[in-house]
C-alpha cells in the first residue's frame, strides 16, 4: 500500500513549507535567499563600483540624482529538506496504529511537500546513529523510490539522537530544513540535539509522534516492565501514585523538548497514533503553514 495515498497528496498539495532565507541552498529555487543577484524580487540600490554589471545600472536614478546606482535583486534558491525519521524500537508501540506507521507517513508528507516546491528532500532514518539516507527527491518520478525506501525502514534498537545529529553535522550537510519525526521517548539527547541543529543554522521542525501507552498508561498491579529497545526489565507495582508520577515526569520531559525546539527557532507539533482519523493529522502537523497561507 502506498504511503502517499491520493487523498493525502490532495491534502498536501495546498501546503507550502516555508523556508527561512538563511536556510536556503545554492541552487535556484523558489525561496528568497540572502544572496542579492539576478533575481526578480527587487531588494535595494547601491552605488556603482567599477566592475559591476552595467546592465543593472538604474538609469532613471542616474537622471534624477546624477549618480550611477545599481539595482539589486534577491536571488531565489531552493532548500535542502532533511527528514530525520526515528526508527528506534519504541516506535513500534501504539494501539490503534503504531507510531512508526504514522511517522512514515509524516516523513513522506514532508518529502512530498518539499518536492512540490522544488526543494531537495532526503529521508534519513536514525536510531543510535544515522542510518543510510534515501536518494534525494527531485521529481515526481522519485516518489515510488521514496515509498519503497520508507517501507523498507524497520524499527529496532535504541535511540541516541545526539549522536545522530553529530553525524549529520560531520557529513557536512548544507543548511536547510531539518524535520525530526520521533516519539521523543528518551529523557536525554533530544533537547541537546535540537539546540545543536539550531546552532548549525538549520530550520527545525519537530513532529512528536506519541501513543496513549507512553503518556497515559493505565495498567495497574504488579508488572514486569520490559524496555522494547534494550530488553531491560524492571519490577514495579503499578499503583495510582506511581502512574501519576510517571505521567507527570513524561509530560515534563516533553515540555522540556518543546521548549528546546522553540528556543532553537523551530516548530513543535504533537500527534497521537492512537487518535488519528484518516488524514486529520496533516492539519496538526502543518497548522502554522496553513495559517500563513490563509487556511485551506
Amino acid at each position, binding site marked *: 500500500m502506498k504511503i502517499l495515498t491520493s487523498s493525502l497528496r490532495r491534502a498536501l498539495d495546498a501546503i507550502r513549507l516555508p523556508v527561512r532565507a538563511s536556510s536556503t541552498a545554492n541552487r535556484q529555487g523558489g525561496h528568497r535567499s540572502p544572496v542579492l543577484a539576478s533575481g526578480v524580487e527587487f531588494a535595494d540600490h547601491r552605488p556603482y563600483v567599477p566592475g559591476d554589471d552595467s546592465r543593472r545600472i538604474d538609469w532613471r536614478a542616474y537622471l534624477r540624482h546624477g549618480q550611477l546606482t545599481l539595482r539589486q535583486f534577491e536571488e531565489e534558491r531552493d532548500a535542502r529538506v532533511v527528514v530525520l525519521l526515528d526508527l528506534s524500537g519504541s516506535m513500534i*508501540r501504539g494501539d490503534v496504529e503504531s507510531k512508526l506507521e504514522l511517522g512514515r507517513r509524516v516523513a513522506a508528507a514532508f518529502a512530498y511537500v518539499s518536492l512540490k516546491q522544488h526543494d531537495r528532500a532526503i529521508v534519513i532514518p536514525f536510531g543510535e546513529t544515522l542510518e543510510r539516507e534515501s536518494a534525494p527527491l527531485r521529481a515526481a518520478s522519485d516518489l515510488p523510490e521514496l515509498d519503497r525506501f520508507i517501507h523498507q525502514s524497520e524499527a529496532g534498537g535504541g535511540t541516541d539522537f545526539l549522536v545522530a545529529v553529530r553525524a549529520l553535522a560531520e557529513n557536512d550537510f548544507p543548511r536547510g530544513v531539518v524535520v525530526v519525526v520521533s516519539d521523543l*521517548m528518551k529523557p536525554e539527547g533530544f533537547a541537546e540535539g535540537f539546540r545543536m541543529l539550531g546552532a548549525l543554522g538549520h530550520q527545525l521542525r519537530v513532529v512528536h509522534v506519541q501513543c496513549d501507552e507512553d503518556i497515559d498508561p493505565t495498567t495497574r*498491579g*504488579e508488572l514486569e516492565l520490559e524496555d522494547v529497545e534494550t530488553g531491560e526489565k*524492571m519490577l514495579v507495582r503499578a499503583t495510582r501514585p506511581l502512574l501519576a508520577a510517571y505521567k507527570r515526569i513524561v509530560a515534563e520531559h516533553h515540555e522540556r523538548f518543546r521548549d528546546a525546539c522553540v528556543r532553537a527557532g523551530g516548530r513543535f507539533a504533537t500527534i497521537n497514533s492512537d487518535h488519528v482519523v484518516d488524514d486529520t493529522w496533516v492539519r496538526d502537523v502543518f497548522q502554522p503553514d496553513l495559517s500563513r497561507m490563509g487556511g485551506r
Partner: protein
Amino acid sequence: MNVFGLGFGLPGAVVGMLAAFAAISVVLIYLLRTKPKRQPVSNLSFWALAAKDTQPRLLSASRLPWLAMLLSLLCALLLIAVMARPKHVSSSEVGLEIFVLDAGRTMGVHDALGSRWTRAVSELERRVRQVGDGTDVVVIAAAERPRVVLARGASEAELGPALTRVEPSESSADWQRAYDAVMAIAGSPDARRFSVTLITDGAAPASFDGIEGMHLIGMGAAASNISITGFSARRDAEAVGEYSVFVSLLNDASLDGTFRLQVSEQRSAQPDAPAAEPVLLFDETIPMSAGEAKTFTIQGFSALESPLVAQVSNAAWRGTASDALAVDDVAYALVPALGRTRVLLVTAGDPYLEAALSTHAGLEVSVMEPSAFSRESTESLAVYDALVLSNAALPSGVSHPSVVAFGAAGTPLLRPTLSAALLSHPVLAGARFDGVRFSRANAIAQADGDHALLRAGDDAIAVVRETETSRAVLFGFVPADSSLRRTESMPLVVHHALAYVTRRHEQSPLPLRLGSVSADASGARDPLTMHAGFRAAASGERANAITRVAVGNTERAESVSESAVATQEFGRARGPSLVSIAAGLFAAVLLLEWLLYHRGRLA
C-alpha cells in the same frame, strides 16, 4: 533450681506438622504473589524516575516485604502454638492438676452431639492422659455432694473404673462445696503450684472466680428446647368457683417449631374419692417462632381442690425433632379448694334467697324456721360462719358476729324510691340498681358508725353495721318486695354481704410452680405427691432442686453458643483469648502489607 519449659496439649508431631504447614503456606503466599505481569514499554527510564519519585523514604523498600513476610510467619507460628494449648512444664517442682467434672443433672442431656456426660468423661480421660510426669492429678465430681473420683497419688489407670461409678446426679452441682474441696486439696503444703480444669456444660461458676489460671472446657450445646417457664393458677375473685390458669412457654431454640400444649385438671384430690378421669382444659398445637415466648390464660371451674398439670409434647422443629430437656416439659400447679362457709338461713320460705345462696359453690347452707331459730343460743349458733335472716331477728340475748338480715325491722315505707346507693362499699361492689323498684321497705334507724348502703330520700333501707366483734348487713326489704330479685345483682349482693360479714375473701393462691409444696396448714398433706407423675418428688427439698434444674437449663441454653459445642478451651481472662489475638495480629500484618503495596509505599 526450677527449670520451666514449654509443652503442648497436642502431640508434638501434630504441632510440628501444623507449624510446618503454616510456614510453607505463608512462604508460598509471598512467592505466588510476586509473579508479575509482563508489560513492554517504550522506555524504562521514565518508569525508573517515577519509581524513584514514589519510593518510600522511611523504610527500605526492598527489605520491608521480607520483614512483613517474617512477621506474618511469626504470627502464623504463634497462632499454631496457641492453638496447640501450650502449657508450662516444670522439671523439678511437684505440680498438681485438679479436674472438676460437672456431674449435675443437665450433664445427662442428650443434645445434637450425643450425651454431654459421655463427651465430658472422654475429654477428662484424654486430658488426664496428657498430663506430664511429675504432675499429680486429682479428679473431683461436682454433684450435689462433690466427691473425689481420683485421689492424689492414685494411678491413672484407676480413673476409668472410678468414672464408671459416677453419673449425673438428680440435682445440680454444688459449686461452692466443689470449690472448697479444690482449695482443701490445693492448699496442702507440698502443692506449691496447681491448676484447675473445669469441665461443665455452662459458664464457670462464680465461686471459682478466685482461681488463677483456670481452664474451662465447655460441654454445653445450643440445644433445641421447649420449656414451660411459668405455670400458675388462681381463683377468680369475681366469679365464685372459677379459676384462671396461666401457662408460659418458651421456644428456646434457633428454629421455628410447633408444640402440643395440654393442660388438664386432676379431680382426684379428695383422698376418699375414687380416681376420676382428668378434665382436659386446653389441648392445642401451637406454632412458635425461634426464641418466642407465649403466655396462655385458660379458664377452669371447680370449687374443689384442683391439681393441674401442663404438659408439652410433640415438639417439632424445622430440621430437627429432639427436645433437649424433658424435665421442663411438664409442670404442676394446684388450685386450692374454695373456702367453705357454713351459713344458716332463717326463713319461713324465701325461694329467692335460697336460690341466690345456692349459686355459691363455697357455701354450706342450712335452713331453719324462725320458730326453731328462736330457741337457739349464742353457743349453738357459733358453729355457723354467718346467719342469713329473712323476716327474722336474733332472739333476745343471742348474738352472732356475722349477720345478714333481710326485712330488718324499721319504719315501714310504701313504694320507696331508691335515691342513693353506696356503690363504693364492698357489699355493693359490681352491683347495679338501675330500674330497681321496691313495693315496700323498712327505714332502718341508723346508729353511730352505720353506713347507709341504700337510701330512699332521707331514709336508709340498707345499712352496714360494724362493731369490733361483729358485722351486720341489714336490708329493710326482702327479695320478694323488690325487683332486685330478678337481676343478676341479687346473688352478687348476697355473696358480697356474706364475704363482708364473715371477713372472708376469696382465696387467690400464689402461683404454684413446679415442685412447690402446697401442703395444708397442718403440713400433713402434700397433694402434689398424689399424682403418679410426681411421686419422684417426694420431698419439698427435692422438688425445689428439680425446679432449679429446669430453670437453670433454660438460662444456660441462652448463654451457651453454637461455638461452645465442642471441647473448646478458653482461659479465665476476661479479655480476648490468645488465639484471637494471634489471629488478629496475623490478619493485621497481612492487611498492612497489602495496604503498603497498594499505596505504592513498597517497590
